[in-house]
């Protein structure tokens, strides 16, 4: 679609431009500024060049946190996308069931991040939590405070619970836009349930799936609040993701320089990975 030429349009976007400048560009420049300087307090700054970047890129702590992030995002996508598609496929298309399902699906999305964290933190506690207690009674050795595997499971289950709905809603929107004639034609052609999914539903959901994967990847890669509330990055460093590490460094240890350098590296990684995802998925789209 093309637009009319009208220079007034610039005035309309000006507030947004200003907002973006204040909320993103200026803070980002400040961070860049910090990343190339060193300070010992008293507002005294020294030029540090790329030293902090060297430090970050050579620290095991950074690479381990990055590995944890990648693993976490991978598991999240591997669980939420198929599960989301599966639920969307089985949701009703007509009648009162539609609105009931949509409301149920939307509920977790409406809860603030830290509340989700708190809910699960309490839910999973071995002493008073409904889940933790039940598992303990059933004889399952579960304790997210002590056991790194249990901590990971908790964080992952929590994220799946919180965000699968988003994938479901996006896929559902894609599915309902498929005209009935396609299903009728497939029936007449004798297509199996799987063929209908593979050749009709999946191709029609491709666009929304791309958005779902991108959103879920970026979000899960930047995860902070929920694990911070539940596990605080522990036990040990087992759930210390880049974001948690960053906050520890910047606020906990007040290492502004390295933290700034790390956040820039972090930002660039997200940008790069999102770009890779996007180009890979859209180029496959263009081939067809």
């Amino acid at each position, binding site marked *: 679609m093309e637009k009319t030429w009208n220079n007034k349009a610039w005035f309309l976007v000006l507030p947004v431009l200003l907002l973006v400048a204040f909320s993103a560009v200026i803070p980002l420049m400040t961070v860049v500024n910090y990343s190339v300087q060193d300070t010992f307090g008293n507002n005294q700054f020294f030029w540090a060049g790329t030293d902090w970047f060297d430090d970050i890129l050579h620290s095991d702590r950074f690479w381990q946190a990055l590995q944890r992030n990648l693993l976490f995002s991978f598991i999240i996508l591997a669980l939420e996308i198929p599960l989301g598609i599966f639920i969307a496929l089985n949701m009703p298309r007509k009648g009162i069931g539609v609105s009931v399902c949509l409301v149920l699906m939307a509920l977790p999305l409406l809860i603030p991040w830290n509340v989700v964290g708190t809910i699960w933190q309490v839910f999973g506690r071995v002493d008073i939590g409904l889940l933790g207690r039940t598992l303990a009674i059933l004889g399952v050795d579960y304790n997210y405070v002590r056991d790194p595997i249990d901590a990971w499971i908790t964080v992952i289950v929590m994220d799946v619970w919180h965000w699968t709905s988003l994938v479901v809603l996006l896929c559902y929107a894609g599915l309902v836009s498929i005209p009935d*004639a396609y299903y009728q034609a497939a029936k*007449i052609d004798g*297509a199996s349930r799987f*063929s209908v999914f593979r050749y009709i539903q999946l*191709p029609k959901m491709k666009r929304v799936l791309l958005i779902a994967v991108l959103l879920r990847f970026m979000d899960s890669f930047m995860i902070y609040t929920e694990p911070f509330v539940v596990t605080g990055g522990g036990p040990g460093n087992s759930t210390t993701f880049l974001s948690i590490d960053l906050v520890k460094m910047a606020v906990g240890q007040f290492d502004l320089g390295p933290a700034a350098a790390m956040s820039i590296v972090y930002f660039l990684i997200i940008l790069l990975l999102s770009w890779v995802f996007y180009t890979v998925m859209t180029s496959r789209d263009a081939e*067809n």
Partner: protein
Amino acid sequence: MARITLDHIRHAYGANPVSESDYALREVDHEWNDGGAYALLGPSGCGKTTLLNIISGLLQPSHGRILFDGRDVTELSTQARNIAQVFQFPVVYDTMTVYDNLAFPLRNRHVPEAEVDRRVREMLEIIDLSGMAKRKAQRLTADQKQKISLGRGLVRNDVNAILFDEPLTVIDPHMKWVLRSQLKRLHKQFGFTMVYVTHDQTEALTFADKVVVMYEGQIVQIGTPAELFEKPRHTFVGYFIGSPGMNVMPARISGNRVSIGSESIELDNAPRIGGDERIELGIRPEFIRFAREGLKVKINRIEDIGRRKIVRAEFEGRPIAIVASEDVEIPAEPRIVFDPARINVYADSWRVGEEA
């Protein structure tokens, strides 16, 4: 291919139909021949799509049975009925090639791959898409996609019937001609039973051996294109078929004289009418010609549509349409003559026969 029997079928979308008007489809009781080409023609909401869906099995009729070759299929699903259908908007599997699209219904039925290949190639020839076998179906034009939809039905040589649901809606006029005559040739060649739903009279008449005209949930006439044109059973058929439709005007009958306003015409035979029905006379614009002597008309407008002229005139205070050929000069003081053999008389909208 199969003979289709519609055994006292009625359908209502609502749960408890009380009156006749609750039925989207009122009493349909017909038998359609094996290998026939039928068109269901009517305006939107006349029940033609309902009837098609009942035949295809997407809809269970509220009453009555449907039989293929004498076998009751009323309870069978679409799949089990073994039919093919072409929809209004082309349905193709976007991610597959043209070849795979055609192979799809065969592969689903576990036909051996060698046989699949043979039949798909044959079908590609028939629908004129051999050169595009390896192309992705998504990028094709609407008419090519429609050909694929058709091909997917034809490639299974065991289908009972092929159903068409307004298949030329999205096709450009020039391509319509090509597809239509191709379809007709296929029918002559292979003799499938075909049912074609449309609101376009040209499509219906040119395609079908028998046209089923529907109006307000009823079949008002089943006939060959010529029967529908020359002897419409109901004034609706007269109006709906032909462009412009039949001229229908209130009339009075006495013996074999029919009077319209102050004018009167002699008929070949006296129509068989009772006492107090509403009598109308119907005459097609094509069967009125200009003459030296005859009925007086006032011409309002002449539409020159290329190969013929449509004359919009006033006769006894009512509008009348007259069709004249390209080369006819319209006289300054026009008089018209109705071809007496082509006059139809209607009592309460239904055509009456002649006295023996």
